Each structure stands twice: as C-alpha cells, then as structure tokens.
C-alpha cells in the first residue's frame, strides 16, 4: 500500500472521528437552546400564544406543550401562604403539581395532617387549573368546602391542606 494512500487514510480517519464528535455536540445543542423559560414573558405581552408555542417547539422537556392553552388571565404561579413552607412559589407551566409528604411530590409537605399523596393541581384542556384530592385522610379544602371531585380553582381562592395554605396568583 502506497505511502500516500496510508497518509490519506490516517488523516481521513481523524477527520471522521472529529466529525462524529462535532455531530454529537450538535445534537446536544437542543438541550441548551430548546428549553426557553424566558419565552413565557414575551408570550403574554404579544398575546399570540399559538405563535409563541411554535417558537418554543424544540423539546421543553418536562412540561407539556402548554402554549396554546395559556389564557390571558391565567395564574402564573402557585404561592404557599401559610404553613412551614410559607413563601414558596412554583411557576405554573402547564405541568401537574403534586402535593404530599412523598419525596417525589412537587411540593413536599412536612405536615402530620398531610397524606403522602395528598392532592394535585393540573390544567385541563382549556388551561383552567383544577385541584383534585387524591384520597387523602384529612381532606383538601378549597375556601371552606372539602373537595370531593376535581374542582376548578378561582384566582386567589385558598387551598388548605393540613396546616398549609396555597393560592394561585397571576
């Protein structure tokens, strides 16, 4: 085999190896630029949720594609107003929020009156946020009434779980 062929193969192999590395890094780029949390602010200003949803199309990993469902007056965050977690806020991005003492809950309640999977809060198809009691022992209260079925949450209505009170706010 001639010297020239071997040299070409040697350099060609290195080029191909590096090409693979570069292609792999290109694939990773979607992780860096695909999840755009800041988009949400501009989306509300522009008031054109469908278009904004398309811009944020590359995989927002953990959240459902919620863009189209966002309402103009929809609450944007969940705030804990009473209890040991007072002041905690969770951004509402179309994901289901679970509450309870279980380690994998979105909001882990440190409360003897809470069950391990106590309640969850999720958006329905119209973007209305719903609270559902998951068969807890001591119940979930919206305002003063104990929940028996999944119930839409009015903005500012307090949801009480044991000693913890949470609200949805804009």
């Amino acid at each position, binding site marked *: 085999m001639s010297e020239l062929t071997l040299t070409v193969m040697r350099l060609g*192999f290195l080029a191909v190896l590096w090409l*693979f590395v570069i292609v*792999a890094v290109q694939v990773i780029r979607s992780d860096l630029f695909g999840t755009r949390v800041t988009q949400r602010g501009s989306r509300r200003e522009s008031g054109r949720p469908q278009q904004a949803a398309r811009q944020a199309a590359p995989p927002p*990993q953990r959240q459902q594609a919620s863009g189209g469902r966002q309402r103009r007056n929809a609450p944007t965050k969940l705030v804990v107003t009473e209890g040991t977690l007072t002041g905690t806020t969770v951004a509402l991005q179309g994901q289901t929020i679970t509450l309870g003492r279980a380690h994998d809950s979105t909001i882990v309640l440190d409360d003897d009156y809470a069950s391990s999977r106590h309640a969850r809060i999720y958006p329905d198809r119209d973007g209305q946020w719903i609270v559902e009691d998951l068969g807890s022992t001591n119940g979930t209260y919206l305002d003063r009434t104990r929940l028996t079925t999944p119930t839409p949450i009015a903005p500012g209505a307090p949801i009480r779980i044991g000693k913890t009170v949470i609200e949805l706010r804009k």
Partner: protein
Amino acid sequence: MSSPTNTSTHHTSTIGSIGAPSRRNTELALLVFAVLIPVFAYANVGLAIDDEVPAGLLSYGLGLGLLAGVGHLVVRKFAPYADPLLLPLATLLNGLGLVAIWRLDQSALLRGIGVAGGKATNQLIYTALGIALFSVVLIFLKDHRVLQRYTYISMVGALVLLLLPLVPGLGADITYGAKIWIQVGSFTIQPGEFAKIVLAVFFAGYLMVKRDALALASRRFMGLYLPRGRDLGPIIVVWMISILILVFETDLGTSLLFFGMFVIMLYVATERTSWIVFGLLMSAVGAVGVASFEPHVQTRVQAWLDPMREYTLSRTPNGDGMVHSEQAMQALWAFGSGGTLGTGWGQGHSELIRFAANSDFILATFGEELGLAGIMAILLIYGLIVERGVRTALAARDPFGKLLAIGLSGAFALQVFVVAGGVMGLIPLTGMTMPFLAYGGSSVIANWALIGILIRISDTARRPAPAPAPNPDAEMTQVVRPS
C-alpha cells in the same frame, strides 16, 4: 400475550401525542455513523499491515452493527424517550476498542508471549454479553426507583464484591500488580467493576435519606461549613474501607474510585463544599500514609516519579528483589512517537509494551497510532458520555435518580481519569481498565450495564409528564334525558 402488548402500545402513543420528540431517529443515524467509523479503522489496519482489506471486515462490521441494532431496538421499545447520545457514544468506543485489540492480535511479538491472538473475537463475545445485560436492564428495570428498595442489600453486595478477591482460593493468584481479580474456572473476573454500580445504588439510597442531616447541621468556620462530629461517621467508614482496599488489594485505582464517587455524591446531595475539602484531605492523608509502608504502592509511585530510572532498573538485573516496571516509560514513548497526528492505524509499535498492551495500556496504542488529535477526540467522547450522565441527573425529577445518575457518571469519569492519568504519567499507574476500549469481559459487561441504567433514568427524566387522568365524572357518567 396480545392484550398487554396492545395496552402498552396504546399507553405510549397517548404520551407521545403530547409532543416531546423522542429523538430515536437521531440516535439511529448516530449509531450508523458510530458503526461505520470502526469499520473504516478495521479496513485501515488491514491495509496498513497486510496490504489488503481484511477478510473478516464484513463479519466484523455485521457483528458490531447487529449488536448496535439490538441495543437500538431495545431502547426504542423500552426506553423511547432516552437520551439519544449515550448508546452511539458507547458503541463507538467499544468498536474502536475492538479494532485496537484486533490490531494488537496481528502482532507476532504479542502472540508469541500469549498476550494477543484471538482476543478480538473474545472481546466481541464480551460485547455481545454486555449488550445482553444492557437489554436485560432496560427490559426488566421498568423504573429505576425500584433500586431504592435495595439500598442496604446493595451495601452488603458491594462489600462482598469488593472483598471477594481477598478470599483465599478465590482470588486469582497473580503475583504482579493489584489483587483485584477472582478466578472462577478458567475465567478471571474483576468484581470491582460491578461493585462500582452496586455501590452507586447504595450511596444514592443512603444519601437521599440522610442528606438533610448532613447538609443542615453544621457550623460555619473560615468560610466553610464544618459538619458535626457525629455526621462525619459515614465518610470515615467509606474512607476506612477504601484504605483497606488500598492496603490489602494494593490497588490505588479502585480505592480512589470508590472514595471519589462517595465524595462527589455527598457534595451533590448536600451542596456543601466542605465535603470536597474533607475528601481531598482524607484521600491525600490515606494515600501518603499507605504509600509509606506498602512496597507495591511504593514501586508504583517510584515508577511514576522517575519512569526512566525504573525502565533502566528493569533492564539491568540488580537483585534488589523488587519488580520494576518498564511499562510506564514505554507508554510515554508510545505517546511521544505518535506526535500530533499519529503514525496511522497499524503502523505504530505499541506491541513493544508487551504485557497488558491490549488492556491497561490500550490508550498508549491509540496515542501512538492516532496521535494527540485522536486521543483528544477519544477523551472528548468519554467527556460527552459523562456530560450526558450529568445532564440526566439535572433532568431527573426524583432525588434518588439524580444521585444515582451523578454517582454512575462520576464513577465513569473517575475511572477514565485514573486510567488515562496513569498511562500518561499524571498519577501513579493503577490496575484499572479504560471503559469500553480495553480488553476484558468484566469491564465491558459492567459498563454496558452502567449505560443501561443511565438510559433508563434519562428515559424517565425526559418522558413528558402524563396527562391528568380523565375526570371520571365527565366521561363515565352519562346523562339520560327522556326524549
């Protein structure tokens, strides 16, 4: 049989409709690329050594392609949202390792001393076993949180695995180097490779429960959070075990790997820099302390400090009763003669390293034949695997999965560092092997299982959240109106 299958397909398609791309086709494209590169290298070796395309090219390419295809189909079926890069990266490294082992098989010198010859076929069989274990992990481990139940069983399992090489009659009686092998029939197994995974499960389960106590109960002193005395217990126990490994198995690599993995996971679990400071201090004290009286470790340290002197001593019989290693210097020469662009596949002389040329020192072959450019690419590929592992940990939604992913990728990174650092003369040589590249069944099989677990965690992490359960009142209840 048909009804469960239907249910699961239905279930998957429901989730898929929410819209996160699964990226399985990206994975397939990369996988094809990752199989073609080693095939190119294989042809290159044959052309350089024998002036002809090797006869085994087709069967080798088909074998590797088949294994990669099986891996891909299993991922597609059982972990559809998994990270698209882990499988192709591991396949590429494994394929390149196979080529380098086959290239060393061609050397008459190595065949003469029994180090090479038919090793590539063996390695292909080990790879098949590795892919089989990878598939078993993905098929039977539906949810990585199941492993959390086995926290303390894992601890016992890992200790047993670590201590096996010391059991008389079971530990392989290899006079040189570290005592990290066991002999079962005609096979030698390195239980430490498997202990790495089991131990990560234990650390993750343990730290998940105890991290609050370890993170919060502390005093501030000189900008560092000092943990309470009694909270130091676990780190001291792990430190003592790794020191015991160092003393009785005389293996710096294994010892460093386990202690380092624990410190990394402790840091991630508690977010306290002080644990890193403590970890570094304790490993430095331990290593220096043991090196002061253990002759085997001393030899390794001497070969690291002055490889040329060791090389000269190994060539001249001087009767001081010490085993001198010529390999450290030879590996450095191999890297040196490779230069920036290397000598090209099959045109180096890394067979001169003789013993362990295709296992511990395989990186020297890459360094000589691919040069700095090739070594950098290979180290970057390892770096990408670690990055995907860390990324998986970031995306994971449960603390156990986060810690497990960090532990596994941390162990992987440490192993690459310990081996590459040893071969390149940055730290003393150890008896560990380069994951996926080096010849050896235990290493290949255990690392495929490790990739399998990472893929399982990343599938759970990247899977879009399931839609809220349909309201039973809305769908099940029908209003009957008299018409």
